């Protein structure tokens, strides 16, 4: 397993009051994404725990594109990954954030 945390300074802060959301399943080639509120209003914090070590650069590219694409701050995203491809990671992140935004 390889673990790392990335922190992105971004805006705007997502409205508060959303309950945490979990998307996806930890299974071979798949991952789960947990989205929760974060106190720091200008940060998007992403914690990655992956079973496939050695792909940190690709993770950074996928995650910074995700932050760029969605522009949300005040969220903490936690990932348990079992060797998903970047395509699956991107899809799951978008799904999780969608679910988080629409949950009240």
């Amino acid at each position, binding site marked *: 397993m390889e673990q790392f945390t990335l922190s992105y300074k971004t805006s705007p802060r997502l409205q508060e009051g959303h309950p945490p959301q979990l998307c996806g399943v930890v299974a071979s080639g798949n991952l789960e994404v947990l989205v929760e509120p974060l106190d720091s209003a200008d940060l998007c914090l992403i914690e990655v725990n992956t079973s496939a070590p050695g792909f940190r650069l*690709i993770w950074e590219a996928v995650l910074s594109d995700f932050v760029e694409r969605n522009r949300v701050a005040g969220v903490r995203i936690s990932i348990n990954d079992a060797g998903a491809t970047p395509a699956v990671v991107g*899809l799951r992140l978008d799904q999780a954030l969608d679910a988080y935004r629409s949950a009240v």
Partner: protein
Amino acid sequence: MNQPSENPIIWDTQMRNCAGRLDRGAAFAHGREVSTDDITKLLEAVIEPGDRVCIEGNNQKQADFLSRSLLKTDPSRVRDLHLLQSVLALPEHLDIIERGQVSRIDFSFSGQQAGRLAALVEQGRITIGAIHTYLELFSRYFIDLTPKVALIAAQAADREGNLYTGPNTEDTPAIVEATAFKNGIVIAQVNEVVDKLPRVDIPADWVSYFVKAPTPHYIEPLFTRDPSHITEIQILMAMIAIKGLYAEYGITRLNHGIGFDTAAIELLLPTYAAELGLKGKICTHWALNPHPTLIPAIEAGFVQSVHSFGSEVGMERYISARPDIFFVGRDGTMRSNRAFSQAAGHYACDLFIGSTLQIDMEGNSSTATKGRIAGFGGAPNMGSDARGRRHASPAWLRAGREALRNGTMPRGRKLVAQIVETNREQMQPAFVERLDAWDLAESAGMELPPVMIYGDDITHIITEEGISNLLLCESAEEREQAIRGVAGYTAAGMARDRRMVENLRDRGIVRYPEDLGISKRHATRDLLAARNIKELVHASGGLYTPPRQFRNW
């Protein structure tokens, strides 16, 4: 004066040679019928050293009993053979080479035996004449690679030796026509000998011998894809293909390669495409094997006609019950024909879409990897512009307009699309700076790297990232960036010039799902018209009978 020549030219040596073989063979046959036990002796009697031999091995149907029988022949008598195979599918095909009875081979596709073949080539135990496309090899049967002996497979023979090939007619007509009319020997293995055939596919006059095989010939269910394995990413790509390509060009006549990517498209027709109002506007006429995943689209009224290269195990009853769609004989079974369907796919279809293992930055694509000589099959013919085509269609004309650069003469253009995930399992990139085909060419001593589809034949690349229209690119540099622009997080993709890709995006050359109005969130398996094999069976009204390995009930 006209003196008679001392050595008058003899014009019928081949015919005499053939008659000699038939005389020798007569000892082991009753008329055309050979008993199972005598087949090896017959082969030894009629095959001569150096013969060009075609063992019918198609994508699906295999003359497996005759292959095994050839392996029992005396290597001192049956030797130096030159094999002409469309497909090297069976281990026996390679065993014959290993026994030292074959010195040369010309073929189209090797599939499962690709690794073994590469090893034999490296050991210098076999020379490859060339790797062909199907049409190319069939064509050479009539020019300079005519088989002397053809070992073929049919469903049934009558007592005279007329043959019924059943739905898996495949390559048989092309092989037999070339062999029988150039003084060759045609030997058929049949599953049964009957008094009256349902229909005659090959007249007895073209057949030298037939033998009842102890077990029915093997047929591989090569085109069956279990929808339960289709991923959300493949569904997303299928949505992009339908909206960004099929709907855009109004593609009605097409061919799909084999794979889960194209199976996903087939299964999205009755749901996603119908929702977009595309029924009757796309995917009406096909050159395609009877893919089980096409059943829901057929049942939904999307499909008007399907001509097939071969059949597919388990689809027989369904095909017979849908004669408006498939090419079905008066006996009620389908007649496939690989040569005709390949020609149809080349000249009468506006789109080919298929998958590949690697694409380079010029758009060349290949399934070759080091240590495996897999061949091409039909993809290069399907996946290339038919420059001899003259009839117009809206999709063809539009692609032609988009391709027009220099000069003023309007032309049409076939659409050729590759649909791939940017990374395969184990993070193997589909986009590479250099194809493995170069290494393979070097290690196997090939004259050219084995490229499946050349970059200049490709018009579109679809990945989960989006779709690139290469026709619209103005320069080689733009083309390269259009490819990198959909190459995702592969090294090749991350090396893209972001500004240039954004520019291509503004011009509609690179389009991402959001540009097409596709929400990734909707890419779920619930969009599939059938999510597993059982739902396909139900969709067929119980007519589809999947092979055992695809059933879980």
